[in-house]
């Protein structure tokens, strides 16, 4: 009845392991439209908002006082798209998991690869890799576009080794080079922040197994949690604030070589990245534990 062109007996050495699951998950991710729409939104929002915000801020420079000029952050301006992208990567991370629960295809997946941690690892690695590549490319492109916009408004690149403070009395808008202290780190960590956030939403997906639930929990952590902390008495709120995921993101992307009103409120960039990595690990581990325990 069936004439096979090739054979693949079940006695072949090896097994349906991680390497093959990575291929499969890559096929799944790139074969749905929502992935491409999400990635295009990340690039457009990143580069577009960088140009827009840099343009607006460039126009304000002349009217700013010395204190405000000291807080001028051309790197941060170029990464404004991050605010939108964090929700996009959240939706993408949640959907990678919950779309399979929504349709029931998670059972098809687990029937082809019964080792559930392998499935979770393959999905997570493909998601993180796709988001990381796109957000890093976007972050660096946004950086250069933003600095180009500032330069077009008569900005001048800061001399090597100097900080923005040395230029507060100048009429020339300061422009960062990628080699300036903190610039490359902030841009790089913008992509790291978004990649880790996508994995947090991914973890929520395995915990909640429901698209709306996972996305609203993710948005709750990013937007609602800070609002709740804000209305707490400052004695309670102040020590908590720097641990909020949204403030970890701020700490990772802001260039903190200067004295600003953030100083002391935020963690150092690498400390913030490590903390967010810790949160991500906890959420994904909880998802993995529940995936292994529960009926599919």
């Amino acid at each position, binding site marked *: *009845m*069936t004439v*096979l*062109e*090739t*054979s*693949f*007996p*079940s006695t*072949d050495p*090896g*097994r*349906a392991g991680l390497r*093959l*699951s990575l*291929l*499969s*998950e890559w*096929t*799944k991710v790139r*074969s*749905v*439209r*929502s992935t491409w729409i999400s990635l295009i939104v990340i690039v457009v929002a990143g580069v577009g908002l960088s140009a827009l915000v840099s343009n607006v801020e460039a126009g304000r420079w002349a009217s700013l006082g010395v204190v405000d000029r000291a807080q001028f952050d051309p790197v941060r301006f170029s990464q404004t798209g991050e605010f939108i992208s964090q929700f996009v990567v959240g939706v993408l991370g949640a959907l990678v998991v919950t*779309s*399979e629960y929504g*349709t*029931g*295809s998670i*059972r*098809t*997946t*687990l*029937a*082809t*690869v*019964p*080792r559930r941690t392998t499935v979770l690892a393959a999905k997570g690695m493909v998601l993180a890799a796709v988001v990381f590549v796109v957000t890093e490319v976007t972050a660096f492109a946004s950086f250069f576009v933003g600095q180009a916009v500032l330069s077009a408004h008569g900005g001048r690149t800061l001399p090597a080794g100097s900080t923005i403070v040395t230029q507060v009395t100048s009429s020339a808008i300061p422009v960062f080079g990628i080699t300036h202290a903190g610039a490359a780190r902030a841009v790089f960590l913008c992509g790291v922040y978004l990649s880790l956030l996508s994995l947090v939403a991914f973890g929520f997906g395995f915990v909640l197994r429901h698209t709306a639930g996972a996305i609203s929990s993710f948005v709750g952590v990013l937007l609602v949690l800070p609002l709740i902390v804000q209305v707490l008495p400052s004695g309670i709120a102040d020590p908590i604030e720097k641990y909020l995921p949204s403030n970890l993101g701020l700490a990772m992307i802001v260039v903190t070589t200067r004295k600003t009103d953030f100083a002391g409120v935020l963690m150092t960039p690498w400390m913030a990245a490590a903390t967010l990595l810790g949160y991500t690990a906890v959420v994904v581990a909880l998802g993995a534990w529940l995936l292994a325990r529960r*009926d*599919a």
Partner: protein
Amino acid sequence: MAADLAATVGAGGSAGTVSTHAACRSRVIQAVGLSKHYGRTTAVDDLSFEVRSGLVTGFLGPNGSGKSTTMRMIMGLDRPDAGSVTVDGRPFHALPWPLREVGALLEARAVHPGRSARNHLVSLAQTNAIPKARVDEVLDQVGLTSVAHKRVGKFSLGMNQRLGIASALLGDPEVLLFDEPINGLDPEGILWVRNLLKALAAEGRTIFVSSHLMSEMALTATDLVVIGRGRLLADTTVAEFISSNTEATVLVRSPEEGRLADALTRAGRGGSVRRGEAGGLLVTGASPAEIGDVAHTEGIALHELSPQHASLEEVFMELTSEAVDYHGSPSAGSVG
């Protein structure tokens, strides 16, 4: 092979004989004491059965009797609360290439609606290192080649069902599980599934197919596993199932039915004589020949003398309605 199997089936009278034959074969599904509860609801209750290779085994039960739960436990998707189930002697998660050994159609709509049929199958094939050429082969086999690049969301239920069957066939597996495969199919599709199941079994594969449509199983299945309320009601062959669950009844019509009834009762063959709903007498415990002899001796004319065969549907209804009665009160839910 087929003739050999037919002989096996014919000889497979008691449950003991069945298991002896099953032990000779390499690929079987073996469930031992499977139990599954969801909260207070008992979905599957101490269920033990075997599925023999090279045959279509029907898995029968009314809706909600635990068929799908059992299928999910075989596939390692739901964890049994007690008992175990193995495929070829191993639990499902221990199979190195699951898709090449067991193919399953569990839910037809379980595909991302935005993905094309081909991409869906490619993603499955990749997990088990199955070449892409095989994807096109199964698409052709189920007749979906022309819509291979269409988004699955635009598929009809029948096309989804075919795609689900394609994914089950993908790994060219020895063991195939189908959960209600003819649901939503048109008559042509039903015929196609029926022939496919038979062809797959004729190739020596083990087919385990669930249905709540007994008449359908009578056409496709050789062996039967019947459950009601999660409990095993029968593990037998279709032929054995019908004959052991029904008494042979003979319908007799005569102008002198009252006198004939008296004569048959006097003849005392241990059966019963009662009036049929559509007229005539329904006689058990006597063959048509014996009834004819009695009538001849008494000089009674006969207008009709026909043996009545119970359909699988009727037998099944009777069996499961009893099961429902037995398990009517919650206290009767203990393992028996």
